[in-house]
């Protein structure tokens, strides 16, 4: 009897790895969000993750591991076992900007990571306090270039999306040293923009759209290829005369390097299905998110996007006064 039991155990033990390959996933998947619960990345991860659970037949559990501009959580996800049970939802900052921002970074988003796919693109807006003189982007650019020492720009801390995108803007306008004021998060920065303590900032559409609609702040342009249905009156940077300023605060999923292909395929498929789901789409669109194209949802397309933005940001960020 004992021998039989041992035999069964041994057989099961031998069978287990093979099964793990074919029957992935057979236990819940942890999706690490490297920011606090409730932030833009967390919201997207939960909306998409909930639907991916249905396709995968296993719960996708969001775990918030915040710290060091998101690099703590991404490091943990990318150094875990490449079995598809720990994946991460990162963003522009953690995947494209981090190597230039954090010199001691312990992961390599370009060569040391398995990209899964893009989950959503979040447009960036250039917004200003409501009584700042310039009426449009051209006047604003002229003002910034003429008075780089008189204006104040706000951001949510070095490494944040608002810092990254605004540093790019200042780099492109040739005023890298323009006064910047750091806040602990977008909320406090927005508070001081509404009350007129600071002059302008760059931030994700979801944080600022309602303020723009209410007229408590004004938006000069949206740094995407197309206008957003959430703010149809705000021109694109191309329309408004600053075509080179193109940047989105996208969110996307990645897994550790070496994750088996069939596991990657299943995750890609689940993400793809989630982004085609009407409820998911509607909720993402409500946030002002752009639904990724078929190409961007695939590992190759996503990896290309990471590389493209890293190439765009690295020279500016490395040179940025910190």
């Amino acid at each position, binding site marked *: 009897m004992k021998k039989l039991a041992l035999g069964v155990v041994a057989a099961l033990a031998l069978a287990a790895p093979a099964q793990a390959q074919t029957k992935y996933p057979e236990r819940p998947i942890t999706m690490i969000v490297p920011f606090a619960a409730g932030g833009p990345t967390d919201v997207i991860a939960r909306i998409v993750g909930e639907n991916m659970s249905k396709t995968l037949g296993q719960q996708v559990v969001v775990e918030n591991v915040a710290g060091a501009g998101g690099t703590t959580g991404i490091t943990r996800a990318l150094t875990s076992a490449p079995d598809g049970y720990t994946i991460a939802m990162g963003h522009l900052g953690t995947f494209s900007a981090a190597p230039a921002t954090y010199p001691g970074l312990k992961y390599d988003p370009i060569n040391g990571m398995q990209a899964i796919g893009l989950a959503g693109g979040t447009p960036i807006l250039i917004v200003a306090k409501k009584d700042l003189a310039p009426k449009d982007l051209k006047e604003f650019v002229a003002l910034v270039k003429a008075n780089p020492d008189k204006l104040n720009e706000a951001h949510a801390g070095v490494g944040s999306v608002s810092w990254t995108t605004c540093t790019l803007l200042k780099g492109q306008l040739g005023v890298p040293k323009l006064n910047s004021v750091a806040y602990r998060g977008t909320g406090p920065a927005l508070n001081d923009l509404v009350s007129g303590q600071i002059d302008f900032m760059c931030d994700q559409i979801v944080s600022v759209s309602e303020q723009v609609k*209410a007229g408590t702040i004004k938006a000069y342009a949206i740094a995407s290829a197309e206008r957003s249905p959430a703010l149809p009156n705000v021109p694109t940077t191309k329309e408004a005369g600053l075509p080179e300023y193109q940047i989105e605060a996208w969110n996307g999923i990645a897994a550790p390097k070496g994750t088996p292909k069939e596991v990657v395929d299943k995750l890609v498929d689940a993400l793809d299905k989630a982004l085609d789901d009407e409820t998911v789409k509607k909720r993402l669109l409500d946030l002002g998110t752009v639904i990724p194209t078929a190409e961007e949802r695939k590992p190759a397309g996503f990896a290309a996007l990471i590389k493209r933005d890293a190439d765009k940001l690295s020279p500016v960020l490395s040179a940025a006064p910190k």
Partner: protein
Amino acid sequence: MHDMIANLGLGFSVALGLQNIALAFVGCLVGTLIGVLPGVGPVATIAMLLPITFGLDPVGALIMLAGIYYGAQYGGSTTAILVNIPGEATAVVTTLDGHQMAKQGRAGVALGTAAIGSFVAGCFATLIIAALGAPLTKLALLFGPAEYFSLMVMGLCFAVVLARGSILKAFCMIMLGLLLSTIGTDLETGQERMTFGFPPLADGIDFAVLAMGVFGFAEVLRNLENPEARDVVKAKIGRLLPSWEDIKQSTAPCLRGTFIGGVLGILPGNGAVLGPFASYTLEKKIAKDPSRFGKGAIEGVAGPESANNAGAQTAFIPLLTLGIPPNAVMALMVGAMTIHGIIPGPQVMTKNPELFWGMIASMWIGNLMLLIINLPLVGVWVKLLQVPYRLMFPAILIFCSIGIYSVNNQPVDVAFTALFGLFGYLLIKLGFEPAPMLLGFVLGKLMEEKLRQALIISRGSFMTFIERPISAGLLVVAVAILVIALLPSMAKKRDEVFTE
């Protein structure tokens, strides 16, 4: 006025739906239960429980989250009173007299006072928000970095002036707290400071880690010295509910606390932190016999607890009327709203009146629930104190560790808490009070941040603090407090805020 009643009518019609009442109840209950885990304050509790609200409609979800928030806030006070562990910054003050009351067998009275004080504060705060929410928004916008810095300076002056006996020791502890708060990544430059290249320090020290260590762990260590003289609560339990005399004594502090906490709660950048502290200072200053404070004075529980709850509620004003979260909890609420497709902004009140007024009505209902849930629970909590020490100590340590771990999912946080526990034990042995250190720690981060923001905006001119009228006014008050304290006649009457 008529509008307000009509609006509140709408709100109550939403909040009094059977489902929403049930959600408020469940929220308050779950919030209370998780919130009593030492170290798990409202932020951690809401972050943990946020996902369970996803299946609900937006109003129901927010009502439940608000319930969780009040419940967790109250749960933090429970651990502060029973085991001397503040769940979050605002509960630090409650440890001072609340835990002393527990030691004297008046744990039930302290818990009851906290619950009733919170309820009274909640009722008033609800009315304030309903009547004056929109106009009060302007107050939040009047406070820029310079004003906020001056407010913090005033807060620190209270601490120095009112510190016990050795003003030097209190001063040292405040400074130590300030220094500890500077550990981590520099906000303006992104450079790491005093982290010794150790990655877990890059985000600085978490409040819960420090508080749990110097209060919770250190307390256990100290009690191990002589297990017989058990400190938590001796066998006697005493009354479970406040007597008529207790209630009479707490009424005025409770109302003053509500006012102070309510005003500070509206300010951006977590002004509510100062509420309980300012209330305690005031109560002690105007008391006939200030020496009672720190030895179980009921006013020292009633005032700060009311201030705490009033501030917790008025903190909703900037969120609901401006769409801007003033603190971490409200930032989570923003997340909850966006997940449900409501993007907070200045127009929530007009675009989603049923949500806006439903939330406000549910605040009152939530506070009532809290009272209903907590008064019977008082007996349960107090009984817990009779658990023998050999079971109690490991349990406190285990729950502290679970709580700490669950905040950031970082094992290293637990190790840090243990280190601070040893440090806290050393402080107790040397006669240093940990409370001023925690105050310095909490205010330090904000002060530095606001100081630098103000100076960047003013291009390095310190005159900005004097040129701006509100900032100048706050600084004048701060100086006045210091001068009064330094006058010899007043110095004799100086007594400490922080007494254990």
